[in-house]
């Protein structure tokens, strides 16, 4: 019972998650640089950054900041653990919401004007992408008749063909979830400075390191969800993942930041048109009696 493959994968996620996530971030930065005609940092740059962040010394802004951030990380890791352990992914996504809430609360607690706006905007983005995430999982369930990661993985038909609209919707919100332009309005990896750093404005050193780490973990299982859409053949999966990854970075580099109105409205409309537009007929066709 303890040594099911699922458990090993889940433990593997906890151990290797940061390495994979960090490499994803490293490739991301190199690709971004190349798109801008630069050479860019070395592949291992995110790890240098993280190790540097953990070597810094900084006092917290208040008593709640650090507990909230650590909780954020713990719950993100736990979400991933349960995800790869084969628990109900719909339930887990609700747990992920909890992790996000901790991050937002950490920002709120500082009281800093920049962090406060960042927190508000992050919340707004959560509101914007949440419906699509739920529809994605319901769509996957409907196609594979399971909320278990491995059972969906084992489905023989390529899900992307059954759920093209849902995939498009997911792609759209992936940009938000990964804090990429044009939806990087809560915080940003680039030197936009009007919000200082928004959500992470008053986090420095190890505290920021924890946020980064959580972000890496998160990106791993987000891409794992993307993977599910192509899981019927290994080749398709690789191409699909790489294409998705490339697309997200491309969008990041060719768009300018939008206002919150546009972020919310566009995400909800895409969810409704592509997501629900795909799910509703698909559900009606495939429902059992």
């Amino acid at each position, binding site marked *: 019972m303890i040594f099911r493959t699922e458990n090993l994968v889940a433990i593997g996620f906890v151990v290797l998650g940061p390495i994979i996530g960090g490499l994803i971030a490293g490739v991301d930065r190199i690709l971004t640089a190349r798109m*801008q005609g630069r050479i860019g940092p070395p592949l291992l740059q995110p790890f240098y950054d993280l190790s540097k962040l953990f070597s810094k010394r*900084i006092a917290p802004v208040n008593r709640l900041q650090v507990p909230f951030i650590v909780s954020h990380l713990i719950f993100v890791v736990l979400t991933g653990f349960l995800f790869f352990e084969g628990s109900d992914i719909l339930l887990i996504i609700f747990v992920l919401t909890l992790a996000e809430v901790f991050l937002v609360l950490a920002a709120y607690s500082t009281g800093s004007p920049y962090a406060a706006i960042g927190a508000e905007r992050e919340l707004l983005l959560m509101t914007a992408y949440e419906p699509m995430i739920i529809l994605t999982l319901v769509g996957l369930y409907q196609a594979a008749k399971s909320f278990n990661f491995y059972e969906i993985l084992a489905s023989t038909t390529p899900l992307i063909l059954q759920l093209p609209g849902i995939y498009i919707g997911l792609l759209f919100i992936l940009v938000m979830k990964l804090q990429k332009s044009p939806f990087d309005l809560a915080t940003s990896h680039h030197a936009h400075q009007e919000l200082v750093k928004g959500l992470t404005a008053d986090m420095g050193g190890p505290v920021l390191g924890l946020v980064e780490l959580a972000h890496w973990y998160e990106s791993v299982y987000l891409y794992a969800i993307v993977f599910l859409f192509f899981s019927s053949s290994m080749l398709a999966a690789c191409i699909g993942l790489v294409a998705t990854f490339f697309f997200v970075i491309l969008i990041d580099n060719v768009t300018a930041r939008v206002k919150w109105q546009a972020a919310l409205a566009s995400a909800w409309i895409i969810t409704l048109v592509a997501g629900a537009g795909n799910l509703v007929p698909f559900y009606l066709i495939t429902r059992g009696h």
Partner: protein
Amino acid sequence: MGGVERSIWIVHYDASSCNGCDIEVLACLTPVYDAERFGCIVTGDPKQADLLLVTGGVNNRNVEVLKSIYGQMPEPRAVVAIGACAYSGGVFSECYNVCGGVATAIPVDVYVPGCAAKPESILDGVLRAAAILKERRVALRSAPRNAKKGSTEEGARR
């Protein structure tokens, strides 16, 4: 992984420069010079920065701001003063409100010469500061956690 000298996050403060040096600092980020090759990122937040890049001289108004920004940077940290103004006040040194170079407010580790400083030399200055950061990190590691650390060390001059 020796992160410190390969991951240099910069906060740039324009004290009272003529903007000449600022433009050269920004030039470092462009594809021609690509500071990110060395792991340099410009951030707007002193709490996330390792290096304070100051252009222009200090005047009576901004001396507090400069001190405050420096004070909010977590240890280990370093300061690079860019251009003649940041060294001594430069062409503005005789102005009624100018106190002098950056060193009148905060300890400076590296001076980058020029009016304006060239991007190549700015990058060079940043990398020298990175080496100083590395030393400080080693020193900080051996220092007890709560001991107050005097932040002035012999400023390397170029």
